[in-house]
């Protein structure tokens, strides 16, 4: 439990932890934005991961020779940032995510892909490859008179990785729905679906057929993509995640802010339960300013659910009051002026 005034550095601490997982961390910051303002010194985060009898040393930071590059180390050996996900699953809930259901599809898609990553660490590598091929193709289309054989090679890569991404999302969704069915009664149950062209292709065709179909769709859509600025107008990078408050039969975005947060908590708890059951290790949960905004019943239900999950959880709040029920069970830290002291 991290308590302290706003701006004391609680969220920064959670962000540092979040960088021990693949991707840009909980703020979605670019590497250059992670450096201390007014300094060009490299940054780094290191942690010892203890699981049963095994310990692993994880570390990540900016490359001292190139601040645009991120380095990772696992037990002292150089690793890819995506490899960190194989060691440690991590999920978070932040105040910025309060708008998740109301904003554009991309934030929901990223949220869902992070859940998938918790169960399937290779999802990150696939997504990176897909994004890279997508960007290469977009640039090629923007330049005019693109070489068809070159485009063909990139579209092949997009079709292969794109179908793999959509298939991973569908497989995950099925398990998440099953985990939600066992969910906590204190929080509203969300009905959830992934909507996207390739996901739908996989609903009616084999992966190989979907690959062919998506590739042909990309080849036929070159003209339209050029007109739209280069980036493909269809594909798994356009998919959306639809969440419905099941009992009210109401789209999440129409629900009250409090209910939206409760739906998100349901999703995070179900996803953690799922990852814990399948990978044998509950994800580390970073819950930024979550407890204070719940009514006392739900707060207790959340603490009960976290205890049942049995992993490691980091909660922040301005006041220690809401954490009272955890007094005997958790470690409390005070964060003040970017330094941490044990209470």
């Amino acid at each position, binding site marked *: 439990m991290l308590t302290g005034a706003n701006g004391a550095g609680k969220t920064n601490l959670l962000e540092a932890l979040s960088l021990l997982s693949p991707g840009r961390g909980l703020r979605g910051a670019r590497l250059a934005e992670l450096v201390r303002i007014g300094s060009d010194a490299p940054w780094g985060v290191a942690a010892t991961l203890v699981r049963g009898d095994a310990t692993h040393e994880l570390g990540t930071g900016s*490359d*001292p*020779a*190139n601040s645009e590059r991120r380095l990772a180390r696992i037990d002292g050996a150089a690793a*890819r940032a995506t490899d960190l996900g194989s060691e440690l699953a991590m999920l978070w809930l932040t105040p910025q995510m309060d708008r998740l259901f109301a904003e554009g599809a991309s934030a929901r898609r990223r949220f869902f892909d992070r859940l998938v990553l918790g169960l399937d660490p290779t999802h990150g*590598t696939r997504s990176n*490859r897909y994004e*890279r*091929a997508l*960007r*290469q*193709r977009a*640039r*090629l289309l923007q*330049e005019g008179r693109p*070489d068809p*054989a*070159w485009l*063909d*090679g*990139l579209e*092949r*890569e997009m079709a292969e990785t794109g179908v793999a991404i959509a298939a991973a999302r569908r497989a995950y969704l099925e398990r998440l729905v099953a985990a939600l069915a066992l969910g906590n009664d204190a929080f509203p149950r969300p009905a959830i679906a992934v909507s996207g062209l390739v996901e739908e292709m996989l609903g009616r065709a084999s992966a190989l057929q979907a690959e062919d179909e998506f590739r042909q769709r990309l080849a036929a859509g070159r003209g339209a993509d050029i007109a739209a600025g280069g980036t493909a107008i269809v594909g798994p990078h356009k998919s959306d995640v639809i969440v419905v408050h099941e009992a009210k039969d109401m789209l999440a975005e129409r629900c009250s802010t409090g209910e939206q947060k409760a739906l998100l908590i349901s999703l995070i708890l179900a996803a953690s339960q799922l990852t814990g059951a399948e990978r044998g290790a509950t994800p580390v949960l970073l819950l930024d300013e979550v407890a204070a905004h719940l009514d006392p019943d739900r707060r207790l239900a959340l603490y009960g659910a976290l205890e049942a999950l049995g992993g490691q959880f980091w909660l922040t709040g301005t006041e220690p009051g809401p954490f009272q029920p955890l007094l005997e069970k958790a470690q409390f830290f005070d964060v003040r002026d970017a330094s941490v002291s044990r209470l």
Partner: protein
Amino acid sequence: MSGADLEKLIQLLAKLPGLGPRSARRAALTLLKKREQLMTPLGEAIQAAAASVQDCSVCGNLDTVDPCAVCNDKARDSHTICVVEDVGDLWALERSGAFRGRYHVLGGTLSALDGISPDDLRIASLVRRAHDDGVREIILATSATVEGQATAHYVTDRLASTGVAVSRLGHGVPIGGELDYLDDGTLTAALKSRKTL
């Protein structure tokens, strides 16, 4: 030596792969402490290499002779050409001893984002070589990165009209793996399990 000379040396050293500003300063200090044994011979070696090492006009390898020693070696199998991205990959394959044919160094991979187009790579000369009598198989050993795979696809397309069999390295090459980082056993296995396209 004036401060400006030292600063220039450090700046140049920092441009080397694996060296940041800090390690460049350390390298410069080491050089200055070992002027006779290290700094002067290194300077001479750099000058000599800059003057004598050139691209092989046939395959793109680096050597002091043109065509390079590999292209000149009559004992090597001239029916098979292995296409690699960089000279570093050629060196890796040579170290492994797994391949006894000839090479073709593309000089990179296609990347619209980095402004590297087919004209910037040795693709046209590869197609010319493929038309030569005696070339029967071309093995594409570009990396498993998105760019490496797209380049392999492009080169395959350009070679289609030559009638030469085109194959790709088989399993064992990790995604994003660069040949230079693979151990010899993996390289040998990848070459043996290559697939004809």
